[in-house]
């Protein structure tokens, strides 16, 4: 039984790797292989890989190595993300639990959440400049929206019967919230963390395109200006892989923390 499951997982990993390899093969075919695209229109995988290696120690053309860009981006993204979680999750929980808070916050929140995160960039740049803070704030807003929505609906989905059980045991309102509603909402809260991570990461790159001096988005923007498409693609791939790794970490954390087979 367990072996069979393991085999299924291995098979899945094998197929995934195969499909990625196939994608790269097609990419190679249309560039170096058949020469459909010329290298200044679409660089080949070989060329991109070379640039990827070089970019770890070269600061051309944008003044920083790949690692420096990556760290700059991660700092901003995780900074905004963590503040978003610290404020967004409790906000969603209390909005769902308390009607008065809900009524006060809801109208503002419903307006804010319809605005794409990137749209805040210009406002933030005018307010606090193009440094760390403006981007972190933009990311904070877009990450927070996902966390509020998911923790809100997680708490709202608490089964009445579970609350009843708590009441027959004499649990106070605070105990009902902390010992029943929050544990039962935990899977949804983690969904929020995962979704927010995605939107934080994508918003970051978009924000960096507009206002930055360092970071993966900035690197892409600079490379695009001088038609270095190989570096643009390097940036895209690093963004994709980093996003996937971060998401895996959150999901792993979720599996550790959500008890009772509810994932």
């Amino acid at each position, binding site marked *: 039984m367990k072996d069979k499951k393991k085999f299924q997982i291995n098979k899945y990993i094998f197929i995934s790797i195969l499909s990625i390899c196939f994608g790269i093969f097609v990419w190679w075919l249309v560039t170096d292989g058949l020469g459909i695209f010329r290298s200044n229109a679409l660089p080949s995988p070989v060329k991109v890989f070379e640039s990827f290696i070089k970019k770890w120690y070269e600061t051309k053309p944008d003044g920083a190595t790949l690692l420096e860009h990556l760290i700059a981006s991660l700092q901003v993204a995780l900074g905004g993300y963590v503040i978003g979680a610290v404020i967004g999750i409790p906000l969603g929980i209390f909005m769902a639990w308390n009607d008065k808070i809900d009524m006060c916050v809801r109208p503002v929140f419903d307006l804010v959440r319809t605005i794409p995160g990137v749209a805040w960039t210009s406002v933030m740049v005018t307010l606090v400049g193009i440094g760390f803070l403006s981007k972190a704030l933009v990311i904070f807003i877009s990450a927070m929206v996902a966390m509020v929505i998911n923790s809100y609906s997680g708490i709202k989905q608490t*089964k009445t*019967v*579970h609350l*009843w*059980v*708590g*009441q*027959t*045991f*004499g*649990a106070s309102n605070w*105990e009902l919230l902390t*010992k*029943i509603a929050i*544990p*039962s909402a*935990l899977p949804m809260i983690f969904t929020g963390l995962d979704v927010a991570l995605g939107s934080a990461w994508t918003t970051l790159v978009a924000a960096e395109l507009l206002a930055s001096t360092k970071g993966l988005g900035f690197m892409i923007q600079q490379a695009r200006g001088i038609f270095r498409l190989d570096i643009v693609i390097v940036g895209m791939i690093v963004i994709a892989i980093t996003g996937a790794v971060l998401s895996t970490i959150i999901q792993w954390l979720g599996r550790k923390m*959500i*008890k*009772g*087979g*509810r994932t």
Partner: protein
Amino acid sequence: MRMDSERQVSTNDALIEFRKVDKFFNKPEEGRYQVVGDLNIKVRENEFLVLFGPGQCGKSTILNMVAGFEMPSAGEVLCQGKPIEAPGPERGMVFQNTALFPWLTVMGNVEYGPKVRGVKKEERRQKAQHYIDLVGLQGFENSFPVKLSGGMQQRVGIARAYCNEPLVMLLDEPFGHLDAQTRYLMQDELTRIWQAEKRTVIFVTNNIEEAVYLADRILVLRNCPTGVKAEYEITLPRPRNYTDPEFLRLRREIDSVVDHTL
């Protein structure tokens, strides 16, 4: 053995009492409609009372009013002479769909009540272990509910309610979702548990056999609005036998007064 609902046994030691209780619900489509009408029940201490009635006739509503989840529209529900206004630890409930906390282990679920009341860890662990043993789940203390069968989940539900040491246990069709074999087994188990530690039990069911098998006293309920139609004292010795002639006679007799509805 049969009595009219009007002539209730007059005992002064009624633990739970319904006095002229009406209950109305408001539903958007159907408007105001009555689920319980002029209900008078006295529940004696340590008796096993079964509320038996067909279909959706407000049996759960009766239990919900004892538990304090719902309030009567008219009349009053008393616990030890005091009106019931909110849920409380002296009235424990075992729900139809177990309602176990999926994020807690068996132990976590069973010790939940004492934990909320601030009982020290060692003491409540010991108590919870006692009830886990009583319902026959030793060895499953650290399992999560998702890993347990329906019957085992219901055992946890019973242990959890017991562990809080309520004055009255409310069981709302607890075996309704179990298959027939497990159901028989759980009826035996419940009888055994109840005989080991006597509590006042109010047990709701729509299964006539289950009613006769378990009860000290059966109240046959009328269909909407629900009220007491007939009352039977069951004096058969335990453990009972489903094929005993007296058992079958009682079963037929009770069946003849039930409102059969489609």
